[in-house]
């Protein structure tokens, strides 16, 4: 498989501030690659460097093996779908899409053919004559993407394009974008702060924090095997226990929790004895009222604080005995847990192999007032 985009040791400093710190990654031809991270992690800076709008402080950028590090933005085989879409209000839909082709000096006949072809592909075959302000949010999205795709770029860059859409449309567009990418086969590089978008659409996701990549992998890898505390907390939701780790003479680790309970954890190369550790367990890894015979499960008593009903995504908000932490436990809608009410005392448990431990670290995952 050829590499559509190869980034080597890319760094960007603004005076003393390092926005992008020595990042390297490759994107395979035809894949959907997402860069996921909170606001201010440097993902937009990274994207603009790939597009050519920023000049890197250090590093190289290659497209299909060719070094284009110092090429001007309009000479690179990449196109950018802007966050605000940047559709030209002074032109109709056809002219918007035709813009890049016209600048290349292509013949009118070819332009008409290509534009109409692309309009069909994005599912808006008769929209050529419409004005930009007559389009809906989802339609504008597709026109913005069509405008870039018509130029057949090596890589299509997308800067959080779904941010301005309302929730239901966003859900719909996630699927549409994925289908579109598969259909046209162009390599997509997509940046977002919404981990759900990244997970649903991507073949590969890079989790970015403070200018560097924490982990690069498939959504499944990131979800089930987060390689750092940040990834564990940023991707998906996760319950966090402050624990102290102890190793006994046989090399078996136990994690002591605030309420005095001990949990068994699997020994992995990263963990060691210490006072300040975080234990992570996913909500769906927690079993409600596990059978007494569940071998090796870590079990504890909790009080139900609230039932967070959300259809298939329902959860229980619980508080462990002897602690003030709040945990989130997946609540399957299979009727067997319908009897649980607030203030009930129940037991929850999990298989030790489903938890991960990292040195204690608190991350700013989102903006708070």
């Amino acid at each position: 498989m050829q590499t559509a985009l190869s980034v080597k040791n890319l760094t960007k400093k603004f005076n003393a501030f390092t926005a992008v710190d020595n990042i390297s990654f490759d994107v395979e031809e035809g894949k959907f690659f997402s860069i996921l991270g909170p606001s201010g992690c440097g993902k937009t800076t990274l994207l603009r460097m790939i597009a050519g709008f920023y000049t890197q402080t250090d590093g190289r950028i290659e497209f299909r093996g060719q070094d284009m590090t110092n090429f001007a933005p309009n000479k690179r085989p990449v196109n950018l779908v802007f966050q605000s879409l940047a559709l030209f209000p002074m032109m109709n839909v056809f002219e918007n899409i035709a813009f890049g082709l016209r600048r290349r000096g292509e013949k009118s006949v070819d332009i008409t053919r290509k534009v109409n072809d692309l309009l069909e592909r994005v599912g808006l075959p008769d929209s050529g004559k419409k004005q930009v302000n007559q389009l809906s949010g989802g339609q504008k999205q597709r026109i913005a993407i069509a405008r870039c795709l018509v130029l057949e770029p090596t890589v299509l860059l997308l800067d959080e394009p779904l941010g301005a859409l309302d929730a239901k449309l966003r859900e719909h567009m996630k699927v549409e974008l994925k289908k579109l990418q598969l259909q046209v086969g162009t390599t997509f590089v997509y940046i977002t702060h919404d981990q759900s978008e990244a997970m649903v659409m991507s073949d590969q996701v890079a989790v970015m924090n403070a200018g560097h990549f924490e982990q690069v992998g498939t959504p499944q890898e990131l979800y089930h095997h987060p390689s750092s505390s940040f990834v564990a907390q940023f991707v998906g939701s996760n319950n966090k226990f402050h624990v102290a780790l102890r190793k006994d003479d046989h090399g078996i680790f136990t994690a002591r929790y605030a309420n005095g309970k001990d949990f068994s954890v699997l020994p992995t190369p990263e963990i060691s004895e210490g006072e300040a550790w975080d234990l992570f367990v996913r909500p769906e890894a927690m079993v409600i009222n596990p059978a007494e015979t569940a071998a090796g499960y870590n079990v504890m008593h909790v009080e139900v604080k609230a039932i967070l009903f959300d259809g298939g995504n329902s959860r229980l908000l619980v508080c462990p005995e002897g602690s003030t932490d709040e945990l989130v436990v997946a609540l399957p809608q299979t009727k067997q847990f319908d009897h649980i009410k607030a203030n009930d005392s129940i037991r929850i448990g999990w298989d030790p192999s489903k938890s991960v431990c990292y040195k204690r670290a608190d991350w700013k995952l989102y903006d708070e007032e």
Partner: protein
Amino acid sequence: MTKSNRKTVNAGFVLFFLPVFLWLFLLVVLPHLELLRLSFSGSGRAGDTGFTLKNYAAFFKEPIYWLTFVRTAMYSILVTFLVIAIALPVAFYITKLARVKTVGFLMVMLMVPFWVSELIRVYGWIILLRESGVLNKLFVSLGLFKEPIELLYNDATMIMGLVYTSMLFMIVPVIGVMEDLDDSLIEAAYDLGAGRLAIWRTIIIPHCMPGIVSGGIIVFMLVLGSYLTPNLMGGKNSLWFTEQIYNQIILYFNWNQGAAFGFLLLVLSSLIIWVLLKLTRQSLKEVVK
């Protein structure tokens, strides 16, 4: 709404309506109607009364009058285009290129000179450019000129003066529309392969058209009706139409002729604007501030 409320509402309306109505009718509508009436009348002296077309006929018969008007109109159009040509890059620099911290300062610097009286600003050019003026004295002493050259009282200088005094009325609307131009549109055009000239042609100017047109109309009317600048910087050679109006009314005391000229100025300039709007396919509605 209670009855008393309606009464006070009506009183409020009358309170605002009456002064405005009186102002517009007594100071604008009626005077211009009177102007029109006088232009069709004889001078009232020596039994010369009643409806007549001779004031207007004089305009068309006497070459000096309509030639002066044509000259004034052509130069006004030229000045308008010159002003547009200068205003666009200046506005572009301030809204899109200058460092954000300096923008406020630059805008103030841009506008302050225009609050100073036109007379003083023209006077400044006079003492700079006339034969005994600053530039001449400077260049002669530096050896660049062998002897002083009269830089005033020619068409080029007059045009420069007109550009100078009307500049602001184009820059303000153009800055207004350019500020509304989203930077990401320019970035997107760039990303799609457009060069700078193509971006000006396809994105910036089409976007700014309403501002350019409204500024253009104001500049054109301002320059056409200008009296001080052509008079002081063009001197006897100015041949500006407003001078004809002044002469008729103040010098020759021929108010009827002056009225006719005044009306012709209004009508013909409105005609020119209408034609230009049609040519550039703009509608007046879109352009009214």
